[in-house]
């Protein structure tokens, strides 16, 4: 038990630290590297939550593909001089920070205040999960499945290709469109504002 707890705190530290690093570094390359760190941390968080497949995808897609993309684009630009990394307006900067802070406070406060709600809702399932670790359903629904054991991935696949198959296909179309669109965008010479 204590390892789980320690693990959580460690990962939380890593994730938040590298997240902060992303925005605090002035050199975007460092930011990108910090982002990789954060991604890996998030993947690890997924593992602690038992979502192994998602964790794997997270590593492959984010830490792999997306980050490579970022870094490659960064390499395309020559971005050594980065004097003003933050937006400078005093009032608007302050406003932004205040709003971010308020937002954080509200969300966290909300979560803390709503604890009773979640606990009440989940008392049964949490208790059941910790006690028997067996398949349990909350409301008798077919799709509410045990998330703890390793056939989790299989269940995930079943649900993905049965209940959410439309969304899946739609995403496929979307990705195709995106692929074409990206190529088109990158090829164009500056769109409608192009100087000829």
């Amino acid at each position, binding site marked *: 038990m204590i390892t789980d707890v320690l693990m959580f705190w460690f990962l939380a530290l890593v994730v938040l630290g590298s997240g902060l690093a992303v925005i605090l570094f002035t050199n975007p390359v460092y930011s990108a590297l910090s982002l990789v760190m954060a991604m890996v941390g998030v993947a690890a968080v997924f593992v602690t939550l038992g979502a192994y497949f998602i964790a794997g995808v997270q590593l492959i897609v984010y830490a792999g593909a997306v980050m490579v993309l970022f870094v490659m684009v960064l390499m395309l630009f020559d971005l050594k001089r980065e004097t003003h990394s933050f*937006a400078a307006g005093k009032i*608007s900067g302050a*406003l*932004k920070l205040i*709003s971010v802070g*308020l*937002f954080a406070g*509200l969300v966290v406060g*909300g979560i803390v*205040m709503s604890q009773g709600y979640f606990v009440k809702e989940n008392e049964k399932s949490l208790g059941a999960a910790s006690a028997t670790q067996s398949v349990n359903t909350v409301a008798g629904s077919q799709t509410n499945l045990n998330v703890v054991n390793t056939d989790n991935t299989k269940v995930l696949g079943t649900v993905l290709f049965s209940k959410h198959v439309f969304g899946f296909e739609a995403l496929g179309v979307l990705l195709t469109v995106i692929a074409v669109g990206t190529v088109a965008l990158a090829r164009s010479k500056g769109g409608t504002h192009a100087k000829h």
Partner: protein
Amino acid sequence: MDHSLLMAILLLSPLVGFLINGIRYKNPTANLSGGIATAAVAISFISSLILVADLIGMPAEARKIHVSFFQWMAVDSFKINAAFYIDQISAIMILVITGVGSLIHLFSIGYMHHDKGVTKYFAYLNLFVFNMLILVLGDSLLTMFVGWEGVGLCSYLLIGFWFSDKEKAAAGMKAFITNRVGDAAFLLGMFVLFATFGTLNIQEMNALAPTTAEASWLGAITLGTLFLFIGATGKSAQIPLYVWLPDAMAGPTPVSALIHAATMVTAGVYMIVRLNPLFIVAPNTMMVIAIIGALTAVFAASIGITQWDIKKVLAYSTVSQLGYMFLAVGVGAFGAGMFHLMTHAFFKALMFLGSGSVIHAMHEEQDIRKMGGLKKYMPITHMTFFFGWVAIIGIPPFAGFFSKDEILWMSFHSPLGSPALWVLGAIGAAMTAFYMTRLMCLTFWGKSRVPKSVHPHESPTLMTIPLIVLGILSVVGGWVGIPEVIGHSLGDIPNLLEHWLHPVIKPIPNLTEAEHSMEWMLMGVSVSLATISAFIAYHFYVKSPETPEKIANSIKPLYNLISKKYLVDELYFGTIINPLINGSKRLWMFIDVNFIDKITYVISDLVRGGGGVVRALQTGNLQQYAMLIGIGIVIALSIIIMR
């Protein structure tokens, strides 16, 4: 032959002529186009002859040929058929229209021979005849109105026939718009009568007309007939809407003969005669008609004395003679009105054609000061014009004498008339004799003032034949209506016209037995007045040409006023037309541009001002937008949580 077929031929033959000539409007050959057009009208004339012959064959009380082609319009209780009927009144009209019409068409072939637009001209002329026939034959006021506007339209086209001349185009427009004023009143009259009788069918209305006279000025029939009469003042050029007719002389001369002398301008008189059972029960209207008619007769004749343009003289003469017709119908002598209408059609058409012949010979010169002594160059024209002259000034036994005398007698004798009207009529007759003699003297007699460059010559046969025919008609035309008093003393010659019209004309109420001695006396007075003034005119313009100038100089202001047509045109422009145009400009600037649009601008400025305030938020900074979203979320979340 079947009546409806004949009627269709009568009506459609000119229309077909119009369509044929209309399609080949660019063709410059006068003989062919004129031939087609004349044939079309001649066919109409023949079929109207057959129809009238049939009509004569019927018993006197049942003389009526009614043909309905199709239902034109039907809305609720308002039903109008495309139906036409010939009775004793319209029989005279169709004979005059198609008969005189064919003669004038014939004349036009010669007159318009060299004009490039000759085919178009004949097309218009045929269209005019078609519309005139509809006007005359229509069995309801609305069908009549169709022809009424149609002839106005043709008149517009023909007055402005030489449209490249601005003045002539303007004259056409003036004619149409002045007529429109009358037409608007005609519409109102129709509305009032429809509201009263529930029908616009002329026969039905005549049958429904009450037997007792309506005393009130605002009674439905008085109001309706008054409006119709205003319509008639437009079409028949009476005070106050006569102004277009003198200007209408801008058209080709045969047009003036056909439209502005013989047929169209008499439509108003004809309409009143056709509706005589209605008019006779509205004595107030009758009074107005008689007064306007008498005034117009004198007023126009006085202007005629001072004019130098041969056609203008004839135009004012026409206005004046139309005044006589209205005087006649105004005092209830509908038969006399129709009679004068007919004789006037003969002699005035003759004089217009004669003037056309003169103008043709003088190479488009219309100023009578540059004529004189044309008698020896143009004997036939002179001879026929002479017949017209004696007819119009009322020398017995020529056509004008009988009709004019009957009008004057009735204006004195009828209970609707008065001695004052007779006096006006007699003065008018004297003036007529004066200016007509003046015209004769200056044009045909006396010394020649023709410029050297012009070589007058007699017109070709094609033009003289109609003149001769009309000349004969001017002489004998009056014999169909010899007044009873003369007929009696000559051995019981019947008044054919009066007998013919008797079944369709309502008698004048309270008409007393005529005193023959009085009638003879008045006749003598008017004829001697006319003779004397004709003699004076002859003396002035042939014997001592300098006298009229002296007289004119001695009464210079009055003379100038009259020769400038009493400044009526200027008055209308000054008080109605120009203020209307300037007022409209101001109205537009004030209401549309400065008021309504201003209001919208004020509103739009308000909106724009408001937008300017909000605009500051749109910095274009992406992150600021994101921040605003963030703030929004914060607010929304706080509301959700705090609640």
